[in-house]
């Protein structure tokens, strides 16, 4: 054992940026290996949205009248958005676990780019969300979902939803870093997720809600993402280009707010 010192020289700005990317890749790779080693987690993360599809398609759906008549076409964009939001919440769980296990403590004592711990986490959850969207598309098609035959718009819808999920992940990162343990982190995400996803246009038209709730349901960001996805995937009565732009604006706004807050929280998390 030698003490030959000075392994890495003091970084310049360019090197810092390069390291931030390299470190994000390293952390993402580590997180993805965990997924591969626990395939059950990936499998069961698709079970819940499939249950929701079946529940709304076959149990509630018949009682919900929608424009255009096809409830499954109305439902699926809502399910996609709900699914990516639940996926975004796993950012809280992942960070809380790493905080609890002491791994974050090791990361914080390493000369790595500290933002990489968060960006690596969110990249991982984004990749997983992409996978779940593919699975859910297949499930949707199997239960009668018939999107417009326009792959580009479908892809754009996925981008809009993923960007929205990505912006929420940074908010959930703050939840995960503030939670006393991983179990609590998961519980703490529910009061955020439930009102946002259910008091939205994801499953029922806002017009069916009482007036005071309509105002919230129509304008909150989840509804904007759902309306945008519905416009791009189904079109027709749901065509709404404005919702696409509003949703993108929401996502960028949330990112500008929550990325710095999350990084600050990470620096102080104990």
């Amino acid at each position, binding site marked *: *054992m*030698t*003490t*030959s*010192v*000075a*392994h*890495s020289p*003091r*970084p310049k700005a360019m090197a810092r940026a390069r*390291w931030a990317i*390299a*470190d994000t890749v*390293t*952390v993402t*790779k*580590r997180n993805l*290996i*965990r997924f591969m*080693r*626990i395939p059950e987690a990936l499998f069961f993360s698709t079970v819940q949205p499939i249950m929701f599809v079946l529940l709304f398609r076959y149990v509630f759906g018949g009682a919900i009248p929608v424009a255009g008549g096809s409830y499954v076409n109305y439902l699926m964009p809502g399910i996609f958005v709900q699914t990516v939001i639940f996926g975004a919440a796993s950012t809280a769980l992942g960070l809380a676990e790493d905080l609890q*296990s*002491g*791994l974050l*403590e*090791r*990361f*914080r*004592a*390493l*000369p*790595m780019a500290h933002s*990489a711990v968060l960006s690596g986490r969110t990249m991982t959850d984004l990749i997983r969300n992409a996978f779940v969207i593919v699975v859910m598309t297949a499930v949707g098609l199997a239960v009668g979902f018939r999107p417009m035959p326009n792959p580009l718009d479908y892809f754009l819808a996925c981008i809009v939803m993923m960007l929205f999920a990505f912006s929420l992940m940074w908010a959930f990162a703050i939840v995960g870093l503030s939670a006393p343990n991983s179990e609590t982190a998961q519980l703490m995400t529910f009061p955020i997720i439930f009102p946002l996803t259910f008091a939205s246009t994801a499953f029922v038209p806002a017009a069916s809600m009482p007036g005071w709730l309509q105002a919230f349901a129509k304008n909150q960001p989840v509804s904007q993402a759902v309306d945008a996805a519905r416009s791009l995937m189904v079109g027709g009565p749901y065509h709404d280009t404005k919702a696409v732009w509003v949703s993108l604006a929401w996502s960028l706004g949330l990112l500008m707010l929550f990325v710095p807050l999350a990084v600050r929280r990470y620096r102080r998390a*104990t």
Partner: protein
Amino acid sequence: MAEQLAVAARGLSKTYPKGGVKALEDFDLEVPAGQVVGLLGPNGAGKTTAVRILSTTLRPDAGTAQIMGHDVIADPDGVRRVIGLAGQYAAVDENLTGFENLEMVGRLCHLPRPSVNARADELLEQFGLADAGGRVVKTYSGGMRRRLDLAAALVARPPVLFLDEPTTGLDPQSRLALWDVIEALVSGGTTVLLTTQYLEEADRLCKDIVVIDHGRIIAHGTPANLKADLGATVLDLMMTSPEAAQSAALLLSDLSDKPAHLEGSTVELTVDEGPKTAAEALRRLDASEHELLGLALREPSLDDVFLSLTGQRTEVDTEAVVAGQKTKGRRAAKETS
């Protein structure tokens, strides 16, 4: 001056917002390059807080600290490039293999890519984990996990090493093995700051010991100094009742130059010549018709150091230590099975 000192801390203070407990108060520390200094104290004494501040993972409320001349507040990245951190709170990833853990740390230290793998293999070999390197850490025993944890701290060959309770919760055999590893590192010139709850550990590994309690330094010296202050042996006499213990303590008070301590119906005497004093105590108790339930001679424990330094037991802390060890032991047992 900064060149010769690997660790220099002055006036470090930290109060956690939760509960407002002063975890560290006006803490000074100097570790010369190439030395091993032990930070000794019970759970909650502030050892981990000190290590966390020195390893840049926690900001102090007041005070300054430099590691190899890098300031922990002004140049944390500079500090991170010269330190390795291992121990109870810095973990390895259970779902990665031993090799993958070391590879990840090597990448995050920005070592050249080819040398990362070579270094990982070298460390696995050195720590007796070569065969287990391809296995997921979940399957490791407690001792293997600690060795990997230490290996992870050494990936970038840091000149300064922080070891936070490296052997807490380990079985005696794994503890001895880890001590050998730490001694080898030190003979290679690495500076080590080690925290521990075990006097024996500090005694074996450290040249210099700093004893802390409630966030304050209460004693500082070589192991020999501290023990000399304390007396070599503790004599425990188990009597039939607290009253009997009281009268026995009175009877034997001249056998020790320190006041006897009563713990329930047990009398504790700090003595210099254990066996001889024990024989004398037995004679006197027998002559005065005190019934004796049991007798023990033992090495002074950390608790005895505290008793002698502060005049009172750290009862709550000691209980926490015992409870903590129990749970950790259980976990380790589960891991080995």
